[in-house]
């Protein structure tokens, strides 16, 4: 145990995901030794992210205003909505350059073990978006694992009566993996070969 401020910093860093006690200590001493302006910039970035970033009121992607950049973009079409679990999945799919429609970020996947059911996800909001009738295709791009597949099936059953085209990304994605870790080529091909559910 260290005294005062340095231990406080180690404790705070240690609460971050993926940061163990050893890493927390290393980062803390790195900060201590770093140039004060660098540290100020880091602190300001931390503040700004909480002050400025919110969730898009339409698609629940991260945004710096009412709506995210993608929802505001008039060059994108409204005929397809691609459903993903997390904002990082939007970034992954954007990198493929394959998709010019809109997104919907669920905020997770159905996961009874962790107490996550449909009511804990932005599913009601998705249904509201679909009811406008403008959307022709719903692309289910949840993770290719047990929970992601269950979420996709749930949504497919739910929207079936609405009569729109429902597609799922083709497999070829590593099973059990996170969408965000798939490389662009793989993910792009999966997008290309998406199938009707």
């Amino acid at each position, binding site marked *: 145990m260290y005294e005062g401020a340095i231990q406080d910093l180690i404790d705070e860093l240690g609460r971050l995901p993926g940061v163990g006690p050893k890493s927390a200590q290393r980062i803390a001493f790195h900060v201590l030794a770093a140039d004060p302006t660098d540290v100020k910039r880091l602190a300001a970035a931390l503040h700004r992210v909480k002050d400025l970033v919110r969730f898009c009121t339409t698609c629940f992607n991260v945004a710096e205003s009412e709506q995210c950049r993608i929802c505001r973009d008039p060059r994108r079409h409204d005929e397809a909505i691609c459903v993903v679990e997390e904002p990082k999945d939007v970034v992954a799919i954007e990198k493929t350059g394959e998709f010019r429609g809109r997104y919907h970020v669920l905020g997770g996947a*159905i*996961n*009874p*073990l962790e*107490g996550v*059911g*449909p*009511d804990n996800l932005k599913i009601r909001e998705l249904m509201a978006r679909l009811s406008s009738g403008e959307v022709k295709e719903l692309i289910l791009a949840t993770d290719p*694992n*047990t*929970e992601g*597949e*269950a979420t996709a*099936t*749930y949504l497919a*059953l739910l929207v079936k009566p609405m009569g729109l085209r429902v597609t799922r990304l083709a497999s070829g994605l590593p*099973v*059990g993996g996170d969408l965000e870790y798939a490389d662009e080529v793989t993910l792009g091909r999966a997008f290309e070969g998406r199938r009707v559910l």
Partner: protein
Amino acid sequence: MYVRRLELVDFRSYPRVVVEFEPGPGVFVGSNGVGKTNLVEALGYVATLSSHRVSTDAPLVRIGAQRAVVRCAVVHEGRELLVELQIEPGKANKARLGRAPTTRPRDILGALRLVLFAPEDLSLVRGEPEGRRRFLDDLLVARQPRFAAVRSDYERVLKQRNALLRTAYLTRRVKGSGGDLSTLDVWDAHLAEHGSRLWAARLELTAALAPHVERAYDAVAAGKGTARVRYHSRNETTETAPQELEKVLAEALKNGRPQEVERGVTLAGPHRDDLSLLLGEMPVKGYASHGESWSFALAMKLAAYELLRAEGIEPVLVLDDVFAELDAGRRERLADLVGGAEQVLVTCAVDADVPARLRGARYAVREGEVEHG
């Protein structure tokens, strides 16, 4: 394939030992408690990343030592591969394969294929269905590695479905009503889909295994009755194709739903199945003598070995403390059955128990050391 060299550091009773092997039979002789099983347990650990005797790693590390190291050179189709495992209780194991610095331990699976029969395997016959399901599933994965994914997918779906049923059950108990089962249809569909794949694979495996079990039992048992294995499911059906079994399982889930919701647990699916073992028409469990049960367990392991061999995978065969249990005639028949193995390793307390057919390399095992005789 065969093991050419095994080196242990602080594994079980061995501070350090090196054993050089040859293809063909190898016999390890030594009195009780000198460390014969410890040697083959180390080989088993490299092959499966688990011990056939204990479920935690701590007992594998020599008392007083921090970590154990198992190094082994395996020759497969003329090429030698080095495999190394470092076992440190409470930490993730470290593995090396060939010249690469480190890999994930599961990457070494398949480098050494081994079928081991040990006295503990009596539980295959006398123990709970879980052990027999594991026997089938391990063999499925040994034949076709992709079944590791089929198995874990099914287990994950089952866990999620059980969590859903359980949460709803507890909500009802606390609040008297309610509980969100809105996703149960989805989990039913996925359970039927993954469960039917596992079910179909086990049915196919059982059919492939059956003639080998019969033949092996014939050789090692005193010759009464025909050994038969039959896959048993609560949802009996004559279907065998995954698509048809999926319908059967979906139907069973539909019909059993009130009961499952009532009890808060999944009752239909391959996680409740069993492999029935029969001598003639008589179930082995509960009816057969100790000798018959033991022979049946041995026959199952020998059948697994023969099946893999028939399909072009030539595993190393290990028979731990087997020959002392057999009379002279059965010893000879077992020796004939396994004598042609690329490598068969045998342990025994009395040299004379092992038939001449298996007279290959001899090793004298004494406390903490192994001497090539």
